[in-house]
């Protein structure tokens, strides 16, 4: 029995199958999640309806930023240099430190501090990554002492497409590698990735980071969702999403990357579900381990993203036809892909909230030990009690619904800005709105459905 034991209520590793999720699953299944999901979907429908009847400028007005201080002196390259130093130290600890991923600072830093926390904060606050980018700091520093510009020009014809491939590579590692948390394995992966991109930056200059390096592209995309950003050379504050309207329409490659952020996040949730495991013919109570699903996870990641892009493009095309909009499919995707960022970000936060609450304690425990501040007991107790589990689920669901509402507002504002009347905008949006309502229900279902991997 041991075997199955806790598969019982267990800790299905979360996402990435990496960090334990949990026995909260049993209590989630006791919640009336059907009702909550319906309410979430209805909220998004209501948003659509309101936008159709309210004056056209309302959505745009919501996102108008408030200018704050003038920009501060720029120290971010210095911090970036420190970040690179920290990263190299982490790689060294990955190779030589504890074999236990929950006690190794590299595993904890990459998967909990960076992937769960920093990505979320980047989306909530603004471009923090700029301050800790471990490539731009060393590049600026080297450039200053060598005093020479990059040797080659980045071939512009490639656009952001290498970045799309780079991010997909990261997502593949997260979702399909058999042991992405193993400190030694992770150290090698991080070292190779850092060195490769460092060489790219040195040879091709900053364009490499803006076009090829997937993590920087991910972070810059999510920075568009932050409260803080720049408007007219000043620091400005606005409702989440204001920068999506303030920034120029992305290139097609970058737009596709934004879709891939959402698609990969969705598959991150989907691949753990009983439904997916059933499709693979696996017993959800006896998950055979990540090494048994490498191929199927890679395929699933690819198909989910392709499917999402196809459905999204179809909705836009249908909308354009309804509204008699002459814009071509490429422009439509570029125009509307950023409206999916709040959905992707919200799902990221919701999906990882439990992992953050549990694995964040391991980070604290490690820090406490490293600083000699004593033992921190890591507890999963909050996952074994109905009250906290309900609160966590409602928070996750609230974030996901909020993300979809913001997405609707953004899409409407963009349609109106493209010169469409409120009625036309509503019409053009109808298929996309339907898609987003469907995605709300799908996202909430992912949080509610039983997981086995």
């Amino acid at each position, binding site marked *: 029995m*041991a075997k*199955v*034991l806790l598969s019982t209520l267990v800790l299905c590793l979360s996402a990435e199958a990496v960090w334990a999720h949990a026995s909260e*699953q*049993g209590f989630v299944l006791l919640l009336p999640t059907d009702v909550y999901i319906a309410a979430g979907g209805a909220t998004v429908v209501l948003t659509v309806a309101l936008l159709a009847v309210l004056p056209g400028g309302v959505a745009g007005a919501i996102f108008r930023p408030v200018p704050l201080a003038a920009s501060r002196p720029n120290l971010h390259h210095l911090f970036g240099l420190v970040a690179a130093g920290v990263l190299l130290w982490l790689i060294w600890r990955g190779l030589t430190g504890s074999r236990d991923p929950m006690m190794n600072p590299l595993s904890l830093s990459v998967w909990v501090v960076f992937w769960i926390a920093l990505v979320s904060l980047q989306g909530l606050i603004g471009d923090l990554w700029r301050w800790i980018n471990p490539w731009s700091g060393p590049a600026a520093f080297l450039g200053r002492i060598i005093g020479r510009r990059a040797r080659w020009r980045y071939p512009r014809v490639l656009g952001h497409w290498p970045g799309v491939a780079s991010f997909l590579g990261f997502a593949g590692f997260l979702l399909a590698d058999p042991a992405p948390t193993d400190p030694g394995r992770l150290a090698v992966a991080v070292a190779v990735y850092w060195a490769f991109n460092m060489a790219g930056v040195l040879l091709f200059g900053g364009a490499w980071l803006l076009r090829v390096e997937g993590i920087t592209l991910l972070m810059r995309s999510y920075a568009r969702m932050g409260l803080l950003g720049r408007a007219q050379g000043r620091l400005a504050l606005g409702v989440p999403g204001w920068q999506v309207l303030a920034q120029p329409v992305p290139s097609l490659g970058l737009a596709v990357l934004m879709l891939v952020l959402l698609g990969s996040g969705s598959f991150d949730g989907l691949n753990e579900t*009983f439904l997916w495991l059933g499709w693979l013919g696996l017993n959800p109570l006896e998950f055979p381990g990540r*090494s*048994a699903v490498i191929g199927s996870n890679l395929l699933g990641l690819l198909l989910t993203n392709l499917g999402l892009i196809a459905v999204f493009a179809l909705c836009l095309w249908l909308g354009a036809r309804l509204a008699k909009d002459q814009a071509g499919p490429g422009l439509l995707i570029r125009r509307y892909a950023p409206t999916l960022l709040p959905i992707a970000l919200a799902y990221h936060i919701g999906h990882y909230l439990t992992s953050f609450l549990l694995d964040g304690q391991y980070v604290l425990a490690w820090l406490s030990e490293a600083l000699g501040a004593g033992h921190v007991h890591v507890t999963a107790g909050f996952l074994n009690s109905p009250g906290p589990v309900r609160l966590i689920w409602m928070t996750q669901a609230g974030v996901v619904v909020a993300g979809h509402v913001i997405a609707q507002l953004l899409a409407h504002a963009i349609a109106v800005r493209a010169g469409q009347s409120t009625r036309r905008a509503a019409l053009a949006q109808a298929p996309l709105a339907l898609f987003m309502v469907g995605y709300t229900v799908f996202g909430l279902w992912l949080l509610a459905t039983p997981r086995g991997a």
Partner: protein
Amino acid sequence: MTTPTKTATRRGALKTLAGGAAAAALPLWARYTHAQSAEPIRIGFQQHRTGIGAAYGRWYGRTTEAAVGLINAGGGINGRPVEIVAEDDGTDPKRGAEVVEKFANQHGCDVGFGTLFSHVVIGSAPRAGELKLPYFVVSEGTHVSSGMLNRYTLQPGITDVRSQVISMAPFITETLGKKVTMIFPDYGFGYDHRDALAPAIEAQGGEVLAKIAIPPSETSFTRYFPKIPRDTEVLYHVMVGPAVLTFVKELGEFFGGQGPALFGFIDSLEAVAINSPGLDFLEGSHFWEGMCRHQQPDETAHEAFYREAVGVDARGASVNDPADVSTYGHMFGCWETLHVIKAGMEAAGYRGPQDRAALIEAVEAMSDMPQSREHPQGAKRFNGKTHQVFGHQFISQVKNGTLMRVHTTAIEDSLYPDMVDYTTQAF
């Protein structure tokens, strides 16, 4: 039967712990002076740190840490300190084999230890055999005694599912009723129960009226309950998975407190507070427990010492967080296994990897292990031929939200004929 030695007191346990702490406070050279080598004994701990076994892995880790702390405080093994080398296997059989390989070839471990989930044991044990690494599993699987593994794989610290199930039969038929219906998940784990229980019930003059197999992906169970024969006296349930709480709730709603007696395995609710809202229907029902989660009025000094050492309170939860319920019914296996490794190494005069075969032989030579601080769950009897230990099992009844022990089985109740003799296999 297990005889309680004496009622434990917190003060007594603290005193003993203080003794250990005093020993631990000695400088290293003083604690290990009689060792031929101060090199640590390296025990590779194959831990389910991530993956579906992580909840167990966390508590197996804490128990291991506590046991090693105690062993080291007492002078280590053969005068050498014990060092745990933990590697995460992701609860993944393929990685499990890789971890075993790392223990042998990379980390210079003397033995491997601690694996829980059966599929990981089955995936890892062949590699341990090839590498001639003594591999001490804590899995409860019957795969060790069934003969499917090898001479290097042993399970001396925890009993196996088959012995647990068959030892339940006499109590079920004598106390709860002779007409039994089983509800179990429709795959290997459920089949182990189905195949072991039915003959045992029949041997006691009972009858299994129906065997209801539930598809593993099922999350609602109401439509299966009408299949329970009306004259059922005992409902034997071994549901696992995230839907187990739903199962209990729906069962309660279906019977409305008027149904047959319920008998389950604590595996279903390991790490979950038994008095959680929604589990009220379990009041009065019976559970198999590998070790009693809730402190019993007659808890022995050894149990009390163990409970304190692993940092668990009277309700089986962490002393740091009463909501953090441990995997109490299983994790003692790590503690006891580590003490068996220590006893085996001492009996074999273990010095290093060249003595691995001697270590296996020393453990194979073990038989009765009395209840002690090293074996707080109770007395054990090791079968050197099948590499499997046998012991007492506990049946507890939920009374006012607390699991109260109502029966302790005799070791003899859990024995079954040998299916293998590993000692005939060459090293």
